[in-house]
């Protein structure tokens, strides 16, 4: 570098290093005096230069602080949040336009599923009141008549409708609980019964809702999925190559910039992992280009594969069910008949109970009979509970009859959406899904199915023998990448993904308006900016 400061440094050093500190002339005392004087002169010179260079230091620091402020990429989080909300909105439209049940579309299934044994009384009441309010929104006013599933649900709901959000409900619950420990389950079944009772009305509401929402967002049933996937891809790519986010990874020390610089040993090591000859640097420019493009694809495929592993148990379950799909057809039909029959029995018990309660023509109150019918009802509900469980289980298997022989992995995964109870059971029994609510897990599942970067999900036939690890590995071997089955199996995929993610980050930065070396400069500047800010604070 050739500038005034560098030149001054050189002159400075020369002057200090060659400062004459000794003399041969004169007596010892003269020599000592000369020496002391020379030291003093030299120190004075050094001190004066220290002041000068301190000023230069401040000038450069001020300039670097200014440049850091100007060159730090803009944080577009707010903009992205809006876009991501738009992506979510489109996903909701995808769901609304899909073939899932109306109660699933309206999220009534989630609401009902949230009633569990451990649900608090307050939560239980809130769920039921929320359910009633939602129906009001759909244009259906629910009354006590809708809650006469059993004498217990009627009793409970009669109190709740008269005293919403009241402490009285605790006493009501306790009173009912001793006669009917299954009251929560009965209320849950009552809500399910209401959903099926108003099936047609709900369907009309959903139809209108879908029409309105589609119109508002200018989509239709045929293009909503492609609109969603292309917009999600667009926003996702923007975020992946965002200069601010990628710089922050290094500025916040989540990644070490020295590992990413062009000559960094870590860079060579990571790039060599997938190079067919183990030496990326030795590849021709054309091969390097091909390598980079293939690794970009590998990154997306491994993300897909990782999520596939996450949901593989669903696929395995469905494939197992698929084997029995033919025999289940008749079982499902007879189970449905059985459910209808037992449901009628429930109604019969309820009617007899009313009579024993003195309600109806020529009816007389009979406490002993009432108690009997209450016991009978509890037993009947237990029976119905089991039948519905079996029916729901058979329903999932029966739905697989709709699959064609050429169904892809995606088709099979998609068929799981035809049974809410199947999804509920799938996500409830696995600890890896415990951290999120059922609704969040199902949402993630939708995102997995409609990922714009899915590569093999829609292409691989699910109903013939397939080995997804080999399919993926072979594909990238054909693209001249060193990818083995072991590298991407369930045990090793994380480690391999770390390497791909490393390369992907470099690729994303290369595609953006900031370079690794510019980020490196920002990191260096940040050290000065932080120091500068600390000093200002101290002052």
């Amino acid at each position, binding site marked *: 570098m050739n500038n005034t400061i560098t030149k001054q440094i050189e002159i400075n050093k020369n002057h200090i290093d060659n400062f004459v500190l000794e003399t041969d002339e004169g007596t010892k005392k003269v020599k000592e005096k000369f020496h002391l004087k020379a030291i003093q002169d030299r120190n004075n010179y050094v001190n004066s230069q220290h002041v000068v260079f301190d000023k230069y230091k401040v*000038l450069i620091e001020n300039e670097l602080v200014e440049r850091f402020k100007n060159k730090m990429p803009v944080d577009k989080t707010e903009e992205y949040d809006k876009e991501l909300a738009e992506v979510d909105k489109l996903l909701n439209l995808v769901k609304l336009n899909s073939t899932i049940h109306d109660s699933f579309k309206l999220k009534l299934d989630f609401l009902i599923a949230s009633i569990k044994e451990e649900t608090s009384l307050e939560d239980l009441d809130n769920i039921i009141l929320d359910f009633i309010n939602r129906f009001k929104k759909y244009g259906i006013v629910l009354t006590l008549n809708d809650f006469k599933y059993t004498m217990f649900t009627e009793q409970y709901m009669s109190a709740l409708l008269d005293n919403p959000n009241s402490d009285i409900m605790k006493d009501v619950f306790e009173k009912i609980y001793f006669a009917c420990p299954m009251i929560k389950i009965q209320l849950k079944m009552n809500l399910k019964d209401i959903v099926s009772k108003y099936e047609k009305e709900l369907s009309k509401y959903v139809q209108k809702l879908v029409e309105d929402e589609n119109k508002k967002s200018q989509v239709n049933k045929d293009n909503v999925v492609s609109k969603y996937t292309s917009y999600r891809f667009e926003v996702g790519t923007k975020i992946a190559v965002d200069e601010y986010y990628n710089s922050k990874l290094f500025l916040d020390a989540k990644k070490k910039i020295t590992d990413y610089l062009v000559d960094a040993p870590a860079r060579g090591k990571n790039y060599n992992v997938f190079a067919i000859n183990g030496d990326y640097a030795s590849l021709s420019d054309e091969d390097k280009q091909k390598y980079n493009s293939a690794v970009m694809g590998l990154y997306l495929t491994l993300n897909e594969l990782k999520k596939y592993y996450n949901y593989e148990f669903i696929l395995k379950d469905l494939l197992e069910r698929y084997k029995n799909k033919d025999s289940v057809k008749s079982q499902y039909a007879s189970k449905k008949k059985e459910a209808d029959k037992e449901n009628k029995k429930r109604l019969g018990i309820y009617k007899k109970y009313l009579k024993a309660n003195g309600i109806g023509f020529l009816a007389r109150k009979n406490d002993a009979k009432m108690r009997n019918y209450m016991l009978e009802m509890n037993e009947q509900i237990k029976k119905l509970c089991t039948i519905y469980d079996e029916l729901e289980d058979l329903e999932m298997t029966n739905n697989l009859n709709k699959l064609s022989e050429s169904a892809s992995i995606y088709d099979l995964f998609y068929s799981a959406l035809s049974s809410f109870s199947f999804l509920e059971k799938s996500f409830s029994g696995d600890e890896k899904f415990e951290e999120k609510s059922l609704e969040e897990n199902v949402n993630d599942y939708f995102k997995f199915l409609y990922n714009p970067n899915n590569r093999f999900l829609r292409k691989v036939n699910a109903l013939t023998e397939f080995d997804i690890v080999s399919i993926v590995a072979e594909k990238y071997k054909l693209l001249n990448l060193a990818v083995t089955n072991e590298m991407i199996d369930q045990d090793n995929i994380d480690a391999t993904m770390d390497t791909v993610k490393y390369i992907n980050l470099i690729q994303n930065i290369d595609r953006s308006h900031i370079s690794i070396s510019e980020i490196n*400069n920002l990191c260096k500047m940040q050290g000065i900016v932080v120091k500068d800010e600390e000093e200002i604070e101290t002052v």
Partner: protein
Amino acid sequence: MNNEILTEIKGLNDSDLLVLYDEVLSHLQYLKESIILEEKEVSEDASENQEDGGEAKDE
């Protein structure tokens, strides 16, 4: 002078400016060490003289 320096600083690209900053920092360190070293030599000489029973230094 400072204005000229400032113009030069502004004319440098980020990498060169950061290199220059490092040079200035190390030069400041060099200047600091230059003073300390000389003083040490003098005081060491003086203490050696005292230990050897040499002449007292002129104060």
